């Protein structure tokens, strides 16, 4: 079957099978940041934004995104780089396999929550698993990232 959808702001038309998963579809379209980790819809590695909301692409049929907007990490390079630097500063990532899904969900969290507490961060990111680390470095990097965002906002307000 033929689908038409928007992938990272570009119109895409492609032939798919009825049971092609969104995960496989976006990877075929070159978005290799989207990974498959657990087989049971638990790890969050395959997170993409569907109409601005983070969803599991491993459990979404490509056919269901007909006419919709899907954004992967490839479409959020600037934001991803910005947070990625905080992550690297803390040496938080080890193998790095979980990073794309993790960053996608952090960007979703930043859109939804204003100045989240540690508990709120942990709750929001509970569906993103990292098997190398104990999430401590990640938490530090998120706190620093939020702090820097806040300082940036204050500076902008003051200059305005």
């Amino acid at each position: 079957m033929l689908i038409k959808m928007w992938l990272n702001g570009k119109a895409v038309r492609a032939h798919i099978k009825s049971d092609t998963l969104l995960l496989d579809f976006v990877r075929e379209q070159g978005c290799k940041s989207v990974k498959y980790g657990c087989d049971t819809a638990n790890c969050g590695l395959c997170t993409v934004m569907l109409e601005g909301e983070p969803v599991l692409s491993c459990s979404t049929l490509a056919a269901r995104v007909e006419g919709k907007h899907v954004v992967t990490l490839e479409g959020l390079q600037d934001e991803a780089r910005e947070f990625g630097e905080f992550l690297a500063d803390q040496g938080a990532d080890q193998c790095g396999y979980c990073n794309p899904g993790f960053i996608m969900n952090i960007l979703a969290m930043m859109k939804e929550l204003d100045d989240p507490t540690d508990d709120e961060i942990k709750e929001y990111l509970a569906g993103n698993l990292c098997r190398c680390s104990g999430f401590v470095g990640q938490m530090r990097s998120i706190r620093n990232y939020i702090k820097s965002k806040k300082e940036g906002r204050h500076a902008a307000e003051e200059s305005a």
Partner: protein
Amino acid sequence: MLGLFFLLFNLGIAYSDFFKYHLRWFITAVALQRYRGKGASELITIKKYVRAESLEQAYQLNQKRSNRILGGMLWMKMSSNTVQCAIDLSDVISREIDEREDSFVIGAMTPLRELETNKSLNQYTCGAIRESLRSIVGIQFRNTATVGGSVYGRFGFSDVLTMLLALDTSVQLYRGGIVPLETYANMPYDNDIIVNIIIKKTPLKTAYMSSRNTRTDFPVLACAISFYKDEQRVVIGARPQKAMIIRADENVQKLIDSEAEVYAQALAGQVKREVLTSSNMRGSAEYRRHLAYVLTKRASLHILDPKEAGIC
């Protein structure tokens, strides 16, 4: 004669050994094949995808055994079944919560995350709805999973079913009309379609608690309670079977005006006596029975004693 007997006997042993040996390998091979068939990488196969244009079309398609209605597809994806025709209801069933004067009408395609973040619904339930949903895997999962899929599945592990059974909830079916959730939960799986989940704004107090081995795992035991006039309802889910309702009996009800602690203990005691639990990898039947007692007591105190409550 004797020689012939021994010859046959030995041949018999040899034959039976030979048979047993091969039978053993045959059984192993079949078991392995089945295991591989249901193994980790084996997912559902869908031959045809149909985005239904009307409920009638979806209903007609759903009458065929090999066809399936898609909810969030999270559980269905992990089966190794072959579905002839997957029916997508996205265009014909609402994914919104419609608040009315006397009820919340929740479209069956509404993602669990919508219920979790809906202010009015959480105000009505004192945050119990949010509490029941927030431990289900992760935000992305709850943005994908639908309330209709959870209710239709009537899964043993379901936090959603446990919570909704404590409220005045009905299921609106395309052909079957409006059925109380308590009735629906025990109905056989049929070919009707859930259109809406209706929660009446009956003035009740409710609380939800669950015990989990790890933060986002299935619950070892889930407990939702609601107090409404003469009815105090305790719903125990993940027993690990489908959630069951236990209503406070006369002896417990007599204590309603006693101290919160006394009443909570009596209700929890009744639940411990009546709840049916069994064992699985997450916990034993006995442990679950104990958890049912503890969670019922805590949840009751959460409602009855404002100091304990926090939110209510």
